[in-house]
Structure formats: C-alpha cells, structure tokens
C-alpha cells in the first residue's frame, strides 16, 4: 500500500515538475495554481485596501499571508539543493512575479537548481554519462545506479522511504517533510494546499466587490472649493427667518497695548501695587509693558484663552440690536424757554391794593372775577373791586386771618374766612336783592342752647350765629388752617391739626355740610 502511494505521489510530482519546467511562462491550469492565484489576488486586494487607510487589521492579514509564504520558503530551506518538490509552490508563484512579488522573491526560495541545462527534455541525456552542467560548466555525472534489489531492500528497511522522491532533473533523492506531505494530500483531495487558507473569505470578498462595497477605482475627488458666490445680484433672495445680528467686533488695540508704548502709558510700580487692592472687576485686565526691541517680545500666554473666550462670546452671549448712543448730552436736556420768548408778561406793577396794615395771608377772587377778598395778619378781611382797587368792605376780627375763600357759585356770594379756631361764613353783600335775601336766609342759624355743648364737643365744632359780622361762626376745638369749597358750592371742608400731642399731626377734619341743610342739621342736633 505504502509503495503504491509512494508511486502515485512520485508520478504526480513528476508531472507537476515537468509542467512547471515546460510551461514556466504559461498560465497554470492546475487547481492549486488557480487557488494560489486567487490567494494572491486577495492579498493584493488587501494591500490596496490597506494602502487606502492604514488600518492595522488589514496589515495583520497581509502579514499572515506573507508569513505563509515565508513559512513555505523555510520549508524549502530544509531541502536546499533539491527544490524539485518545492517547485510546485515556488515556481507557480514565480510564473506571476508581478502579482506575488512580496511572497516569492526571497532568495532562499530561489535556490538555483544544480543542473543548468534548462528546460530541455531529459530524454536527450538518457544515454549520456552526465545529466547536465553545473554553473561552472562542468558536467554533472550521473550517480551510479544501485542494484534494483539492493535499492528495494534498502527501501524496505527505511521507514521513511515512502516520502522519498527521485528528482530526475538533478539526479537526486528528495525527502518530503511532514508539512509537504500534508500539502500534497490536500491537493490530491482537491482542497486548497494551505489549511489555514479560507476559500470562503475569498468568496466574501468577491461578493463584496460585486455588491460594490469594495471599490478599486477611487471615487473622483470633487474640488473642495468652488465659486460659492457667483454673482451677488442674483443672491438677494430673502430668507424666511429672523434677521441676523452680526457679533460686535472686538475692541481695537490702543496705544497702551503696543509692545513699545510711550512711557507715560506704563503704570508705575506703586500703581501696579494699588491694582491689587482694587476690586476684581475694576482691576485693569491689561497692564502695559515695554520691550525695547522686537526680538525680546515673549509669546502671549493668553492667546488661546482669549480666542476661546471670543468663541464663547460668539455662541453663548445673547445678541440684541441696540442703537448706538452717540448723542450730544446737551440734546438730552429739555429746552427751557428763555425769558425773552415768554413775553409779553407783566413786568411792571399795574395795580396796587392799599389798605392792609399787616401781611396779606390769603386772597381769593370771586367767581365773576369782579371782586377780590383778602385776609391779612392785621385781623381784617377786605373786599376789593379788582379794576378800581376800591375797598368796598372791611371785616375786623382782631385775630390773624388765615384763609379766605369765595363760594364758587356766582349766585351765592358767600365768603369763608378762617380766623383762629373759627370759620366764618360771611355775607359779602354783593348782588341784587333776591340774592341778598337768599343769602341772608341761608346764613341765619338759631343759636343752640347751652346744654348741647357736650354734643358739640363730640362732633368737634359748634354753629353759632354771628351778628357782628352778619354770618355764621363755626367754632372748632383747634385752630383752623384753611377752608375750601366744593365746586358746586354745596359743601366746604376745613383743615386743622388733628392732635397736637402726636407729632405727625397732619390734620384732618373734613366737614361736609350742605348749606341748605345747615338749618336742618342744626335742628336735628338741637333736638338730640
């Protein structure tokens, strides 16, 4: 069995070696050569890819391939001198040196055959004593042929005999290694010679190529830059979104930022020290420095940071369009009219009302504008005609007159006067008879009886007919400052300090009285 195997191997080998010798430059048809080709093709693919991007994975794959090649080369080394058996591997690769340059070019692989006869049928030397010539041109003698029996006996003794092959070309016996026999066996079975070569990976690659995942022609690179702004006239299309607010430009550097500023820009040491005492915000961020020559300027340590801060400003700061305030501060002030423009205004004294002996405390004009009443600190109230300065009437009170006020109704010419603790309602005596009658009727009050004092105290005032001045006298419990009529003439109010003891004694006692109901009011009070 062993012998038959050996023979078959031998035959096979011979066939192969012959083929490689005869058709060195032809394409191989044998399975292994095709496979080898594929393998190489895959390798080249990988190589291309790895050239594309230097990914280590591809490299490692490539290396493993290369390693395979080398290992086979090493195997060849074991059998230096007789490369017949190895020729399958080595020479098949040799035949396509352009493809598998990496794998087959090692010199160890290429150990030249001893015989230099070249690619000639060995039959030519059958009858000669030599088989060919070595490099030096000397004849290589044929070995003495052993006796067939002897050789057979020897073969039987030798357990490794089945591995031995006779190399006719070099006239040698070659012993195959274990690995080589494995290779041969795999090839006989129609498998790929290398066990660690996966044909399905190749299939995968083929599929990837077919599907276009792996592209061999690099995509045509488009020019990165082109004419983006063709003609600006056409590009005035309006965008639908909000208006763009350009970021404000950074401040321009002043003289003090110069590398060689004028001396007056450089703060003294004391000033620099004083900066330390300042508040963080007030402290100047930049302290001018002076370098006497350009070569002595150091690198600015905050260059990157400044740039970064600008970036932050650009994308983090809210932007608002603000009108630049470039106004003359004078224009902010409202223009006061000059006195000249206000003319004509009374500039000279035109009328003078003489008669009062003390300071005039208050004046009031009658509704018709014909009369003026004035109250003075000399204790008199005088009634004047406006146009003629004539004093028509004088009331004397003997106390300082604080305030006078006319009833705003023209048909009721009543004058309210405050004197000390009293408010007098006086009949001015103006107007026709009917008016006078009406006024007199209004100003007539019955004198309340004495026991009503307590009720008066509660209310804070008391009504009394004042015959002396032909009017009504309202007595308050404190001095009255002023009196004011309602514009309809029905009510009036008086003001007096609320409490002397409390310091914030603003005031206030408002009395609302209807003139028409005064009598009624009084009556009701008297009744109760």
């Amino acid at each position, binding site marked *: 069995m062993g012998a038959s195997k050996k023979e078959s191997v031998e035959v096979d080998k011979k066939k192969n070696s012959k083929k490689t010798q005869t058709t060195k430059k032809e394409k191989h048809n044998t399975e292994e050569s095709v496979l080898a080709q594929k393998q190489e093709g895959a390798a080249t693919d990988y190589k291309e890819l790895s050239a594309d991007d230097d990914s280590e994975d591809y490299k490692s794959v490539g290396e493993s391939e290369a390693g395979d090649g080398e290992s086979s080369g090493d195997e060849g080394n074991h059998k230096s001198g007789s490369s017949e058996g190895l020729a399958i591997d080595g020479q098949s690769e040799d035949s396509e040196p352009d493809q598998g340059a990496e794998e087959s070019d090692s010199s160890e692989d290429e150990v030249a055959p001893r015989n230099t006869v070249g690619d000639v049928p060995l039959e030519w030397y059958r009858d000669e004593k030599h088989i060919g010539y070595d490099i030096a041109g000397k004849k290589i003698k044929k070995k003495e042929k052993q006796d067939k029996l002897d050789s057979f006996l020897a073969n039987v003794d030798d357990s490794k005999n089945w591995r031995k092959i006779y190399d006719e070309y070099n006239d040698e016996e070659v012993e195959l290694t274990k690995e080589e026999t494995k290779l041969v066996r795999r090839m006989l079975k129609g498998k790929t010679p290398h066990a660690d070569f996966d044909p399905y990976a190749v299939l995968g690659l083929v599929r990837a190529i077919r599907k276009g995942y792996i592209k061999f022609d690099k995509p045509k690179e488009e020019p990165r830059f082109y004419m983006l702004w063709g003609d600006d006239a056409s590009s005035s299309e309006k965008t639908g979104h*909000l208006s763009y*607010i350009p970021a404000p430009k950074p401040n321009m550097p002043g003289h003090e930022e110069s590398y060689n500023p004028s001396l007056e820009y450089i703060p003294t040491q004391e000033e620099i020290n004083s900066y330390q005492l300042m508040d963080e915000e007030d402290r100047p961020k930049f302290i001018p420095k002076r370098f006497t020559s350009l070569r002595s300027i150091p690198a*600015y340590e905050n260059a990157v940071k400044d740039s970064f801060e600008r970036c932050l400003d650009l994308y983090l700061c809210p932007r608002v369009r603000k009108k630049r305030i470039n106004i003359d501060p004078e224009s902010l002030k409202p223009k006061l009219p000059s006195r000249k423009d206000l003319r004509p205004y009374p500039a000279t004294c035109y009328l003078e009302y003489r008669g009062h002996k003390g300071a005039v405390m208050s004046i009031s004009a009658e509704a018709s504008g014909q009369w003026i009443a004035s109250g003075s600190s000399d204790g008199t109230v005088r009634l004047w005609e406006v146009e003629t300065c004539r004093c028509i009437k004088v009331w004397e009170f003997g106390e300082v007159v604080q305030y006078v006020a006319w009833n705003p109704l023209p048909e009721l010419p009543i004058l309210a006067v405050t004197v000390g603790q009293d408010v007098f309602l006086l009949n001015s005596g103006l107007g026709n008879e009917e008016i006078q009658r009406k006024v007199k009727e209004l100003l007539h009050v019955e004198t309340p009886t004495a026991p009503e004092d307590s009720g008066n105290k509660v209310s804070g005032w008391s009504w009394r007919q004042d015959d002396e001045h032909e009017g009504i006298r309202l007595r308050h419990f404190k001095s009255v400052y002023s009196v004011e009529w309602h514009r309809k003439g029905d009510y009036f109010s008086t003001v007096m300090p609320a409490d002397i003891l409390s310091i914030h004694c603003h005031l206030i006692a408002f009395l609302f009285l209807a003139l028409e109901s005064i009598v009624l009011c009084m009556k009701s009070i008297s009744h109760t």
Partner: protein
Amino acid sequence: MVARKKPSTMVARKKHYRPPGKKKEGNASRYVTRSQAIKQLQVTLGFFRRLSILKGIFPREPKKKFKGNNHTYYHVKDIAFLQHEPLLDKFRDIRAYQKKIKKAEAKKNADLATLLRTREPTYKLDRLVRERYPKFVDALRDLDDCLTMVHLFAALPAVERAKIDVELIHNCRRLSHEWQAYVCRTYKLRKVFISVKGIYYQAEIEGQKITWLTPHAMQQVLPDDVNFSVMLTFLEFYETLLGFVNFRLYHSLNVKYPPILDPKLEALASDLYALSRYIVSNTRTSTLEPKAASSSPSEQLEAKEKEMQADESELRLAQLQHQLPSNEPGALMHLMEGAECENEDDQDTKECKRLFKNMKFFLSREVPRESLLFVIPAFGGVVSWDGEAAPYKEADQSISHQIVDRPTQGHRYLSREYIQPQWIYDCINAWIILPTEAYMVGRIPPPHLSPFVDNDAEGYVPDYAETIKRLQAAARNEVLPMPGVGKEDLDDPQNLLVEGYISRAEASEAAQTKKKMVTLEKQYHEELQSELQGAVMKKSKQGSTEHAKASEESVPDPKQIAEDIETMSKLGMSRKKRGLLEAIEKRKERNTARISKLKERKKKLKSSEN
C-alpha cells in the same frame, strides 16, 4: 345687561389665567430656554452646541425673561431653523454609524470595522457658508474672527490630547498663507500694529476693513482650562469659509485655486511638521517641568534655533506662494491684468503700492521674518532674507535697507542703512518714509503707536504722534518740519527732493510765517468765540439785572444762573434720559481722569529726566 357683562369678565380672565393645554402668549411663546430647545430637538448638549456654532445661531434676549435671569433664551424660529437643518440628520447618521464600528470592534471583527471605516459618511459645510453669508461682502464683513482663529491655529503645535490634528494645522497654515498672499499681492494691507498680544493687521477688501491678529512666532502653550472641542467646531466652519473666500479672491485675480505647490517644498513642509512635532513633545515635557526648562537656557536656545529653522522652511513655502501668480503658466495674462488692475485701484491702494518702491530690503536672521515678508511686498518693496532659496544675497550692493534686530552690527555695508524692524511698521502706519535715525541699530526705537486710535477723539495725543503728523505734512509739501526736528530728513530720498526745491532758510521762514498765520487765526477764532460767549453772558446779565430790579433781593451771579438752568433742565428730564445723561457724564469723567493721569505721568517723567 347681564349677558353683556359676561364676556367682558371672560376677556379679563383670559389675560391672567391660561388653562392647561392652551397656547402660550407673549415672550413665553416666542422664546425657549436652552434646555427646552435641546428637548425639542432631541439632541445632546454637545450636539446642540456644535450645530448652533455651525449654523451661527445665537441666543436672543427676550424683553421679559419668563424663566428668570439664569437661563439662555433662544428664539423659537431659530430653533425651528435648526430642526429643519439636514445636518442634524446627518449627525445622527454619523453617530449611528460610529456605533456600528464600535460594535464591530467590540466583537473583534476587525475586517468589518475596517470595511466600515472606509465607507464612513461625511458632511459638508458649503451650504451653511452660503446660507449664513448670502453675499460675498457679508462673508468679508464677518471674516475678522475667522482669520484670527485660523492664524492662531497655524501657530499652534499639534497635540493629540486636544485632538488638534497635524492636517488641521497644516491646513490652517496653508489657508493663512493663501490669504496673506492675496492681500500682499493686491496691496490691500493698510495698517499693522505690533502689540504684546501679537501682530494686528488691517486690510481693506471691497470696502470692508478686515482686522486680524496673528500671534508672535513663538511656541504657544496650550492652557488646560480651554474647551478645544468648541474651538475646533468653530475652526471647522472657519476653514471652510476661508477656503471659499480665498477661492473667490483668487478667482478675481484669475489664479487657479488651490494653488499647486512645488512638491519639493511640500516635502519640506512635512519636514517642518516633524520638527514642530518634536518641539511640541519637548515643550510638553518642559511644561511638566517648568523649572528645568527655565534653568537650562541652552535648551531653550536650541528650541529657538529649531523654531528658526522651522520658520525658514515655512517661509520658503510662503515665499513660493507669494511668487506663485507670476510662476503660473499664464504669467503674461497676469501682467495684462495687473495693468488693468492699476487703473481700477483706488487712491489708497496706489499709495500703498508706492510706499516702499525702489527700496530693497534684506532681513537678518533675528527679525520676525514671516511678518516682514508679508508686509514689505504688500507696500511695494523688494525683500530677501538670510537663508536658502533667497532671491538675493546679503552682499548685493543694490540693497538699500537692512533690517536688523540685534544690539550691535558687526560688518556694515556703507551703501545701505541698518534699521530696526519697527521702522517698517511705523512707516506703514504713517504712510510716509520716516527718518531712520531714531531706528538705528542699538538704539531704543521711539514708541510704537497704535494706528487704530483716533488721537483727537481720544483727547490725548502722544508726542510721537505729533512728530509723525508734522512729518506727514512735510511729505505733502504743506509745511516743512520745525527746524531742529527735521535734520534727519536728509537721510531719506523723498525729503531730499523736497529740500531741492526750497532752501533751508526759506523753509524755516515759511514755517514761521505759517505758524504765525496759524496763531493769528487761532487768536481770531478765540476772540470770535469769546465774543459770542460774552454776548450771551451780557444778555444773561441784563436779564439778571432786570430780575434783580424786580425782586430787589438776589444778587445775580452768572455762574449761579447757569447752574440753576442746568439743574432746572435736569429736573425736567425723564428718568430714562437722566440716567443716560449721567452715564455719559460718568464716562466723560473717566476719560478725562485717564487723560489727566497720562499727562501727570508725562510731567513726572519729564521732571525726573531734568
């Protein structure tokens, strides 16, 4: 009667009471707080942040903050705008996809993970740029922050911890160089200011003043208290924006964009990157041990040298870009176009173009080369530097100015002037060629003033600003500088020309007459003014005398009257206006205090000098 009353009470109720489920009214219906918005959009805060940055959505201030002061309010329309953004869906897709990858990795399915990685979905921001800036001018108007950021990142080291990519930094550098190349090429630069923070540039493009800040060419230290993801989101948008802006600008020059660079220089750039990376790792260790770093100056020196080297190669790249338009195949066309451009140029551009004309500069090793290489050609000068690939060598006899920033200069060519770099910047800001005497090697240069300050409005004019003003007037042939000040004018060619016309004596005479005229005029104006005031005063006095006659009591005092009028008018103001006025007055006061402080310091300095 009853029936009529009922609805009125209903209406009155509705104002105050909103039954549940009814629509809101007023500010509460128009604004939402941030957390509400996030809920509505169904995104995380980080997503929301990112989206709002990219979309340019910002909070708005409602008139009434219905949820209190501590909330950020967004307008409902803004949020709806975000909700309809296709990018939102895209982000979700990307997130889901990343989960897939993670899953594959967790299952140790490396093949799948790698396969998935090759097909990761991406997104573009082009549409957003167009949406946010419908016109090109809008984009230019908002370009300040963009440029500042891109220039800052161009100077930053790549740090993995902060997710600052190498490619990102490269891209920033490229974009910033492209921008600078355009500005330089079209002579659009107007003002430059060296501050402690960096160098401010201001260009004027299409009538828009664009100001940006570039950090000094030093190693930047990354602070820990900065959220880089926010900055990177901003940068992502800015990169896209600047790319498109550059495209448009280059297109207007008829130059292809992106510019194609020499592969050799590209290789150099990568080399440069490796160097910068190395420096980063160095600085990282040095930040860990600041003491060690400070204690070993030699190490620092080394780092500096490396930086210089890095600068050099970078500069070569920049230089190439500067030269690029002329290197293009259609160089002739460019020439033609250049001629056309000159007709179109406004007055400013023409003047800028002429400033350094016929001057040849050479930069020593220690000057800020990148800035000067940008600035000098932008004002019409020719410049070279110490290093490889320079257009001309130091020994070139036609060099008129050599820019040096060291205490002493060893070997000197007599045909050229040795000046400090500040001279260039001061000339640019003054728009005239300043006398070089004050900027000689080894001297402390005169103060460098900010061109962004309106001295008159500020109320305080530094001495040197006045000197420059006088020199400017001299350059315009109006008035010659005061005798004694302008003796250094002999040095520069423009003033020499002027002096050719008028002899020295005549000049001083003219100056004096002019001065007299000015003083006379001033006096006249003052008198006029005082007359006017006097008339007013007299009138008021008359009025007051009248008043006095009438009252026979109060003694009229014009001051008192003025005060009275002031208080009267203040009394008549509304509260709002009064507040405003007070604020204005406060500000004025602060300003005057500041100015008086400056003056006081100046006085002290002078007295101490004497």
